[in-house]
């Protein structure tokens, strides 16, 4: 039997911090290539197709960034909540809540000029996402109801509600029988930022949101409180920090950003609400946040990275005739290897039965 133990590193070199996630990504691509070989095609060629599919043309880049938009927002939603140890698994439901708000207010009920209409839609979308989380965070704070369970289950309730509305009262009569909502009025549609592509203003807004969250977390009193509450709620409480209030603010911010992802998809990408508005952006946001180590700036990059794999995998699938499910495999492997690499940054493997005090 091999005798080995984990020992804590005394020094972590900055090179290692930089290269560990890159190494982890390469490692997961290598593992995934086994599956590609089993599918009977050349993995290197497949990965080239994947890369070209994600970044090979103006249109490909625009498509990747458009896909990254909701991922960045749901990634931020997960990151800020997880930093305060509030386990919001409900970004998917909050995203749809945002989309519902856009459909309710943005399809004719309220009419404003574009420069007011777009901020208004983001506001109501964020409020819807945040308010959906509010009763759940109160249940957690006052009755100790596990938020993992409540936020997860709320996803199903909201998605079924969307299904009911789109099949029934909110069904667009002009949709030829498809279950979809009425179109967002022209003033509310997010403008394209690269002409003749699907890349819309939402991408800029998601970057701006990430920078704002970074500023809040690193430079403000609220950020200080969120950090303290996340690391040690008991000590924070004894030091006079209002723990419950802080977690409620975190929940509103988290739900709000997930709601904003619903806005970018409804008012930006599609123009109307559909049942398949989100192919699991809420859940993928958790992966985005974990990949970035919950760092808001890092989330911009990990969001684009995950989007590129999803978009590129479509191209790879068409060119090489491998299933698009490989994208999910690659994403899952990448998250796992990056998480392991983060642990391995703190520890090293020592052979021969030595152990030190941790």
């Amino acid at each position, binding site marked *: 039997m091999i005798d080995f133990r984990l020992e804590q590193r*005394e020094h972590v070199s900055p090179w290692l911090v930089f290269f560990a996630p890159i190494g982890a990504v390469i490692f997961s691509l290598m593992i995934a290539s086994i599956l590609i070989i089993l599918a009977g095609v050349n993995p290197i060629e497949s990965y080239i197709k994947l890369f070209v599919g994600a970044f090979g043309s103006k249109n490909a880049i625009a498509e990747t960034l458009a896909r990254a938009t909701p991922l960045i927002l749901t990634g931020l939603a997960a990151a800020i909540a997880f930093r305060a140890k509030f386990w919001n698994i409900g970004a998917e439901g909050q995203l749809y809540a945002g989309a519902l708000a856009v459909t309710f207010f943005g399809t004719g009920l309220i009419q404003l000029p574009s420069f007011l209409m777009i901020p208004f839609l983001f506001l109501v979308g964020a409020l819807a996402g945040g308010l959906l989380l509010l009763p759940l965070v109160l249940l957690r704070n006052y009755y100790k109801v596990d938020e993992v369970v409540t936020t997860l289950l709320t996803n199903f309730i909201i998605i079924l509600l969307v299904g009911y509305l789109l099949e029934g009262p909110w069904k667009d009569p002009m949709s030829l029988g498809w279950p979809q909502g009425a179109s967002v009025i022209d003033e509310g549609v997010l403008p394209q930022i690269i002409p003749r592509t699907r890349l819309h203003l939402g991408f800029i807004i998601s970057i701006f949101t990430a920078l704002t969250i970074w500023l809040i977390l690193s430079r403000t009193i609220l*950020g200080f*409180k969120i950090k303290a509450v996340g690391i040690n709620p008991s*000590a924070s409480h*004894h*030091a006079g*920090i209002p723990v419950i209030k802080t977690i409620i603010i975190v929940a509103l911010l988290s739900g709000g950003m997930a709601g904003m992802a619903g806005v970018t998809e409804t008012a930006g990408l599609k123009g109307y609400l559909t049942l398949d508005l989100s192919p699991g952006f809420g859940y993928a946001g958790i992966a985005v946040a974990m990949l970035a180590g919950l760092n808001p700036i890092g989330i911009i990059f990990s969001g684009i990275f995950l989007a590129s794999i999803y978009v590129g995998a479509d191209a790879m699938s068409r060119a090489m005739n491998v299933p698009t499910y490989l994208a999910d495999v690659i994403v899952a492997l990448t998250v796992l290897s990056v998480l392991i690499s983060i642990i391995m940054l703190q520890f090293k493997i020592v052979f021969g039965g030595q*152990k*030190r005090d941790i």
Partner: protein
Amino acid sequence: MGTPKKMSALLEIKDISKRFGNLVANDKISFTQMQGEVLAILGENGAGKTTLMNILFGHYKPDSGEIIFQESKLPAGKPGHAIEAGIGMVHQHFTLAENLTVLENIIIGEQSLLSFSLPQKSARKKLQDLSDRFGLPINPDTIVANLSVSEKQRLEILKTLYRDCTLLILDEPTAALTPQETDSLFSTIKHMVKNGLSVILISHKLNEILAVSDRIVVLRHGKLVGEVVTSKANRTEIAEMIVGGKVNYPKKEKSSPGKEVMRLENISCNPINESTKGLNGVDISLFEGQILGIAGVTGNGQTSLAKMMSGHLKPKNGEIFFDQKRIEVFNPKNFMELGVAYIPEDRNIDGLVADMSVWENAVITEISNEKLGNTLGFLNNSSCNDAAQILCETYDVRTQTLQQPARLLSGGNVQKLLLGRWLIRQPKVLIACQPTRGLDEGAIASIQKMILDVRKKGNAVLLITEDLDELLKLSDTVSVIYNGKLSNNFSAEGLDRARVGLMMAGEGFYD
């Protein structure tokens, strides 16, 4: 079987060294434990006692040196061998399954997970024999949760004896015992030694060591700095050996009570968890320039009392007055604003945010008042830094940088930081729970001085501590807590320790 061989070597520690990075935890430590001897290992936190024990039990592999037990070498870095060879250890924090009976706890580790029944009968007989032979009475069918602390300790000792241990190691065995229970433990130790057991006592309480041990070895900064036969030992000499120089303990100056600052009238509350009691009709008055000490065995309502007086609990009955005004709002923030400072007993859980930096921990109590930021809610880094700098200088918190994580601070510096950040607010009332627990002598002296300074400035202190010596030294008046009730106040001067000890155990409490 038969009489033990007197004065032959049982355990030999030879040249044990162990480094962790730059830290030398054990530096060429050598000593010998004789058969039938009570050997005391003395030393402050970080002197290397724990590392040495971990090496003995094979949890660490020493960099050099060897351990010989009963004339054969113990393999280095292999856990389990020491226990098999007959070395047993009772840790300060017990490792018992509270929901099982005494007998089940004894058998539990011996059984394979796949066996269907427990060998209750033979185990019961063996337990009875051991219990009789070593004078450790216990009822095998009691649920462990219902045992007192000293009975649990007895069970831990029986557990090691059941595994045929010949060398028993006791780590800080008196930490949670009343003075009477301590005495009874010591006579048990003497009885066990007479019956063939050898004992190593690890402690930092000098009085107890002098009372029960045959020989003393002293560790400091990983080195063995002294070895004395107890009968020839000089108390001050050993104390200086432990700390490596003289410690200037603060002296209590005369201080006459001023006006009443805080008063609890007939306060009752429910227990906050299963390991502590609630309060039952408690009356307390705190006066300016006075320290009220609360004596008691842990778990009799001390935590509830401290939490009640700092706004963390709401009373079920009764009233609290501050400066003769009735308190209506029970939350920590309101009490903080009135001028109450609270040092919780578990400083690593309720005090320090270990993964935040030293400066962040220094300013966290002020953050809530938003003094350190601008109106937009942005932190002002330079004023935070200045505030932290002032705190560390005023209260002698030794840190390499203000940016380093607070978890790298030593226990003494952590406590100076936590106490200091309250004292800098000039509190009118300080509630201090176990303020010096687990600290080394130098840090204890600093913390005690900080507490006495609060009194000197004419403010009130409620001191809750397990350490009766500390309690009597610092307090002006003493009250005993038992089962959620408080006794009358006694003047600390000339107080009879034995009487306090009995009251801590509930005897003569209601007289």
